[in-house]
């Protein structure tokens, strides 16, 4: 698999879910096609845009119960998952470190 040259272009289908009723999407967007170069920050922007929150909230993401700390691409490679699969991505509110809160 020679994804290095055009890795930026690789897309993957994702389905967003959450266990928390208060942050459920008002309208189910269904499966979304995103670039595998996306990281937590990008996904967080996506969920905020779908929630239409006036003030952006940071989110954390889990794939197969594992927190996403890299790009989706690196996560797939590390876990031997193919970008041909539809990924179910769970989101949850990020726990903001107290220091960060204080500085707000």
């Amino acid at each position, binding site marked *: *698999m020679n*994804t290095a040259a*055009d890795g930026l*272009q*690789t*897309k993957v*289908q994702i389905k967003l879910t959450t266990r928390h009723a208060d942050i459920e999407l008002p309208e189910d*967007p*269904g*499966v*979304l*096609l*995103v*670039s595998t170069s*996306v990281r937590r*920050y*990008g*996904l*967080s*922007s*996506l969920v905020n*845009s779908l929630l239409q929150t006036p003030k*952006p909230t940071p989110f954390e993401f889990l794939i*197969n119960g594992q927190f996403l700390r890299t790009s989706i691409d690196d996560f797939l490679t590390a876990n*031997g*998952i*193919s*970008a*041909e*699969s*539809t*990924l*179910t991505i769970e989101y949850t509110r990020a726990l903001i470190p107290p220091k960060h809160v204080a500085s707000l």
Partner: protein
Amino acid sequence: LTHLDSSTTIPTPETARDLWLHHESTTHSLAQTLTEHLRLILAPTLATKLRGDFRTGKRLNLKRIIPYIASGYRRDKIWLRRSQPSKRAYQIMIALDDSRSMAESGTANLALKTLALIARALAMLEVGEVAVVCFGDDVKVAHEFDKPFTSDAGAEVFGQFSFQQQRTDVKRLVERSLELFQDARMNGQGRGEELWQLMLIVSDGICDSHEEIQRLVRMSQEQRIMIVFIVVDATAGQSLEQDSAEAEAKGIGQDTKEKQSILDLQSVDITTEGKVVRWRYMDRFPFRWYLVVRDVAELPGVLATALRQWFAEVVDAAG
């Protein structure tokens, strides 16, 4: 979720053969319908351009005047005529998506059925040569242009699909096909006949590198290669249920979770600054001529319509 080290691979020759025979027989009458549609569309209808060289005609062929004088007025085939439509020969390539998403979305079986239907219809039509290529990570010729597409050939083609390839490189497919078409043009049968080249891609339609693909599609248009993209849609619920036994026989996973149509799929672009743009995936699909098929029964009609429109455009362009 499925992992890369899946051991499901190529079907046994017996399985492939059974599946081919099954699809061939269940699509038989549809194939006949398609053959009839295609016969009307692919037959020569274009009045050809003026061509030389005749002793009498409509317009002088200026290139012939000087040799005519130089020959002491003996080489007198100096006229152009609008001749009868010339016989057309076709080279038609069917490219089938062998990537894993086909198995995961449950469209692999519908895709094989579509392949059987089209290949049989074209073989009955006897308009030219038919090739089949398999694509995913890479492109492989599963059936060559210069071989007849018999029932045995069909079974052999089916035996080369596993729907386990880890990428869907449509850009590479189009690039490679242009080369294959070029070679086929050089080697093809029916020299002197008007050669038309047509490519039918059968896939779930999920691919990336759209801009580069668009560029290649334009290039193929310039080389007079028509590409029709047949999207087999995941919401092909009923027909898939009927076929679940076949699918199991071939080891194609069927899951029962609800399927979403590609028509509802949204693409998302997220900039590094976090700006989010969403659009309907099919609104920016890189192929101009595409069909979305949920049931093979729809195929003869929609494919014929697309080809008819394309030919109408070519006639227009030829003025």
